[in-house]
């Protein structure tokens, strides 16, 4: 019963979308009431499912499907596939969505398109839940694209801002680029297997149906999609810009849920990735590189949301690397904990922005006094993200680092450890500059105030979860039971306690350094910036990735213009109309011959006669004489032709 109605988790938010969109203004809280109620219900349900799964009350994995459409001899199903990871994701998505929607009541208050905001939110949640639930690659892909649409709509929610409009398009196109790979991956899989069903594919993989080559191609192509959606290098460029959207949107979509979809997908299809070790190596390197490069880029922005965006990119890379070195159990645990504290951080940042009306951390400072709740919760978020014991981030990061060490993949391991230090550094930088020290912009500081309860309550809840979640869920009995799949490395036996100590030391030293620079000012940050401005600019410039893609865009525009020119001038005007005008010229010539040669052949006749020494008067009958000459010519021609045959 509980399981049979799981599709409702998808359909309820989906159906509330048109209701709120079209009739929102007549509903309680302009429609927000409905979507929040639906989301609360969904969350409760998901939580119950999770509890049931942990207690063994329901048997997982569970799958159920109906036929969606069929073509040829194939049938595409519409169904749900529930395993531990899915159930957990359901909880995460519904919880964050619920909290963000509650938070938005305060944040979006008074916006002229309030109902539309909530309808988009609920559409997004529906699509995300669909993505999580799907038992079928095609449905997963469909929902994957739909969350992309919602992201587009919500980034560009304040579309009067040209930057927002631009950013929304950039996000859509960039992720679409990755999705092309995803689509081709689907073609490869279907051409090879004739099915999209994930359980069936799992069976086939288990039975050794996939040749290593096919597995490599299909998994890498699918990974392209994940690279776009989960903002991996080099496709991450859209995510920092996506911060133009409302901050709660960033928290929900661009921190906790949608961007994690790529990680989720890789975890769910891990059976495909692990067939060929090369695939995992690629994933690991891209993940680790993303983690490290984004962490570097996170060092420089003044915009608080940009820092968080880079941090998200970096953490997504972490998760990917975690998947590659440790398997789904390792990678996806960080996904869950990260969802909590990154949503928390974004909402906290939103609270700050709401109070200060600016994103610039250099115009903030000393807010811990004015906004104590926001400060405490934000600090918890920073600590969790930095991986400080015993907060949730510690547990999940520790797992990844442990697996990396065990795998013996040194480049990845080193990158991940460095990232850990960098993360602690830039997060502490934000914390110090925003909440501690002195207020740098007195006027803004004067107007600042703690946010309303609808905004702080979600902060508190998320902070609490960020504290306890790692402790509660880690280990074989809880997380290990939900997501049992973990890569075992034969040669690696690094003791767990050593890893824990090492990572703690790294994180703490990162924090300490940030305190040293920004709080105690042992080193003048401005001077460092001046001294190394080449590097600073390079980082600020996103290491040229933006310009790289922009060059492609410009190239395509140039190509488009050239082709359009060619199409019009060469193909259409030149070839097609050229034929037409050629015919017209011919007709002019033909008419000219008719009119002047044939009609005026008399002149020629006269000329010949002159030449012969006799004059012929040009008369009306002369015309006819010329005809007769012409006739004789015609007859002779035909004679000649006849002789020739």
């Amino acid at each position, binding site marked *: 019963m509980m399981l049979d109605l799981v599709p409702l988790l998808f359909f309820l938010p989906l159906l509330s979308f048109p209701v709120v969109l079209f009739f929102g203004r007549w509903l309680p809280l302009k429609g927000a009431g409905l979507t929040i109620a639906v989301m609360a219900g969904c969350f409760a349900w998901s939580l119950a499912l999770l509890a049931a799964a942990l207690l063994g009350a329901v048997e997982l994995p569970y799958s159920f499907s109906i036929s969606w459409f069929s073509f040829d001899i194939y049938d595409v199903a519409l169904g749900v596939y529930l395993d531990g990871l899915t159930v957990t994701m359901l909880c995460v998505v519904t919880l964050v969505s619920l909290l963000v929607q509650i938070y938005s009541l305060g944040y979006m208050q008074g916006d002229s398109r309030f109902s539309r905001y909530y309808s988009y939110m609920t559409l997004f949640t529906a699509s995300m839940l669909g993505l999580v639930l799907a038992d079928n690659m095609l449905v997963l892909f469909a929902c994957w694209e739909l969350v992309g649409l919602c992201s587009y709509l919500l980034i560009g929610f304040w579309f009067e801002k040209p930057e927002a409009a631009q950013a929304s398009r950039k996000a859509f196109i960039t992720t679409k680029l990755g999705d092309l790979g995803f689509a081709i991956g689907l073609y490869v899989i279907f051409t090879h297997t004739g099915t999209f069903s994930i359980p069936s594919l799992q069976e086939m993989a288990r039975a050794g149906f996939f040749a290593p080559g096919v597995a490599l191609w299909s998994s890498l192509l699918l990974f392209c999609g994940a690279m776009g959606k989960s903002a991996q290098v080099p496709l991450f460029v859209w995510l920092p810009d996506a911060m133009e959207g409302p901050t709660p949107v960033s928290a929900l979509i661009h921190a906790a849920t949608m961007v994690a979809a790529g990680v989720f997908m890789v975890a769910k299809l891990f059976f495909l990735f692990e067939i060929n070790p090369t695939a995992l190596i690629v994933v690991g390197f891209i993940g680790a590189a993303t983690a490290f490069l984004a962490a570097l880029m996170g060092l420089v922005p003044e915009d608080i949301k940009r820092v968080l965006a880079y941090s998200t990119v970096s953490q997504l890379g972490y998760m990917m690397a975690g998947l590659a070195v440790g398997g789904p159990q390792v990678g996806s645990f960080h996904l869950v904990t990260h969802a909590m504290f990154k949503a928390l951080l974004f909402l906290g940042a939103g609270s700050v922005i709401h109070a200060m009306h600016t994103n610039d951390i250099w115009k903030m400072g000393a807010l811990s006094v004015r906004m104590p709740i926001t400060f405490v919760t934000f600090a918890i978020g920073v600590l969790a993200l930095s991986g400080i014991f015993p907060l949730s981030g510690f547990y999940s990061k520790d797992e990844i680092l442990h697996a990396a060490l065990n795998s013996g993949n040194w480049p990845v391991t080193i990158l991940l450890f460095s990232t850990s230090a960098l993360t602690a550094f830039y997060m502490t930088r934000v914390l110090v500059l925003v909440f501690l020290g002195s207020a740098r912009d007195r006027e803004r500081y004067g107007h600042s105030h703690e946010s309303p309860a609808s905004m702080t309550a979600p902060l508190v809840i998320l902070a609490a979860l960020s504290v306890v979640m790692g402790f509660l869920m880690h280990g074989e009995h809880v997380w290990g039971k939900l997501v049992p799949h973990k890569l075992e490395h034969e040669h690696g036996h690094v003791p767990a306690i050593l890893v824990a100590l090492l990572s703690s030391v790294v994180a703490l030293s990162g924090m300490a350094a940030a305190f040293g620079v920004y709080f105690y000012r042992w080193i003048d940050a401005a001077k460092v910036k001046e001294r190394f401005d080449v590097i600073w600019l390079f980082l600020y410039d996103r290491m040229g990735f933006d310009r790289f893609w922009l060059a492609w865009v410009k190239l395509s525009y140039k190509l488009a213009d050239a082709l359009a020119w060619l199409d019009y001038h060469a193909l259409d005007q030149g070839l097609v109309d050229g034929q*037409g005008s050629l*015919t*017209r010229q*011919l*007709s*002019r*010539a*033909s*008419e000219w011959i*008719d009119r002047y040669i*044939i*009609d005026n052949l008399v002149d020629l006749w006269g000329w010949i006669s002159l030449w012969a020494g006799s004059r012929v008067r040009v008369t*009306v*009958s002369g*015309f*006819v004489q010329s*005809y*007769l000459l*012409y*006739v004789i010519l*015609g*007859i002779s*021609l*035909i*004679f000649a*032709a*006849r002789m020739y*045959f």
Partner: protein
Amino acid sequence: MDLVKLLGAEVILGAAGLILLTIDFCWPRRRALMTGVSYMAAIAALAVLVGALSHEAAASAFLSTDALTFGFSLLVILGTMITLALSQEDPTIDRHWGSYLALLLFASAGGLLLLKARDFVYVFLSLELISIASFILVAFDRKELWMIEGALKYFLVGAFSSAIGLYGISLIYAATGQTSFDALGLMGLSSARASSIGWIGLGGLLMVLVSFCFKASIAPFHFWVPDAYQAAPTPFTAYLSVVPKVVALGIFSVLLSFSASNMGPSIQAASLAPIIAVLACLTMTIGNLSAIHQTDLKRFLAYSSIAQAGYMLIGVLSASRLGGSSILVYGFGYLLMNFGAFAVVQWVARARGSYEISSMSGLAQTHFPMALAMACFLLSLAGIPPFIGFLGKYYVFASVIESQWAWWVAVVAVLNSVISVYYYLRIVYYMFFSDPFGRTVSKEVSMALLSSTVFLLLAGTVAFGVYPRPLLRLLIE
């Protein structure tokens, strides 16, 4: 008795012509009477023709009828009747009404006779009958100098071509001692081999071909057409563009198929066919290309009719049963649509006083039915379904594709029909896309007969296009 049966229609038309001449001489003002006599004659001729259908095919040594002859004869008489109707509405034919009608009937009688001729002497006789009547009729309206010029050109060229034809016949006779198709067919006339009829005979045959080409306005013997067409009274231009042309092509095809039936398949390999194929392509192309730039409606239709003759000539070249029927079907469609187009042109010229293409401007807004009718005629001439012109083209293309070797002629033909659409659409453009012309028809001018003729022809063009079965049964089966 056989001869009467054979020549009934011709005799009726000829006699009526004589009566008309007499009436015109004695009572030149009895216009209605003369009109009545001419209609009666045409109807009587039609009756005799249809009556003859039930009898067995009659034949003498020189004259013969068969199924195709019947179809072509029907076409001649219908063409005459339509011309009569159009002529009644043409105020330029004000003098010598009886003579006009008589000459028209003589020309038609000549046409009917030509179709039955199975001997070169008869061919020449009947051709002359048509020609002499036509010479006078083209010159009937002599108001302007250029009209006289056109008529004179037509006369001189026509006489010249007759002379060539006659000379050719005499050469054939000199070479073979025969003038009847039957005998010549046995000798392999149309295979046109010097071995069978000698160089002299071959030369004669080619001269006859040239003479036919003149009558049927086949390029490069078409140059008299625009001037003559422009000069003649419009109803007779319409007649001239249809009846003599179709008849000449018809007898030509009879001549070829006659010998084909005796010679078997050799006709395709070594006959006149390649020359005819080239002539057909040339005619279509020159006609179409020259039509594009015309600004005078009658000259425009003149070139269009040259191109149409080219299409019909394709039917001649395959020299098969299908080829013969294709000329007939095409000719019948051509009768309806070309008379229709001329009728509308006549209507517009009377209503707006000009034969310039621009006088068609905005016709759709002032007289939508008339514009629609004209559009249908033009599209039919261009060979767009579902009009009868398409059926004719289909037949012609089918006949040439059936012959296989000449499929490239079909390619040239379809390319030409694309070109032709361009200039036919130019008229449509004036009628539908331009704003109305300044002058419009004055209310008191009633052209009921003309309008009803137009719509009768339109009905035929559409109805036989959509459901050609009765027509085909009548003409071919």
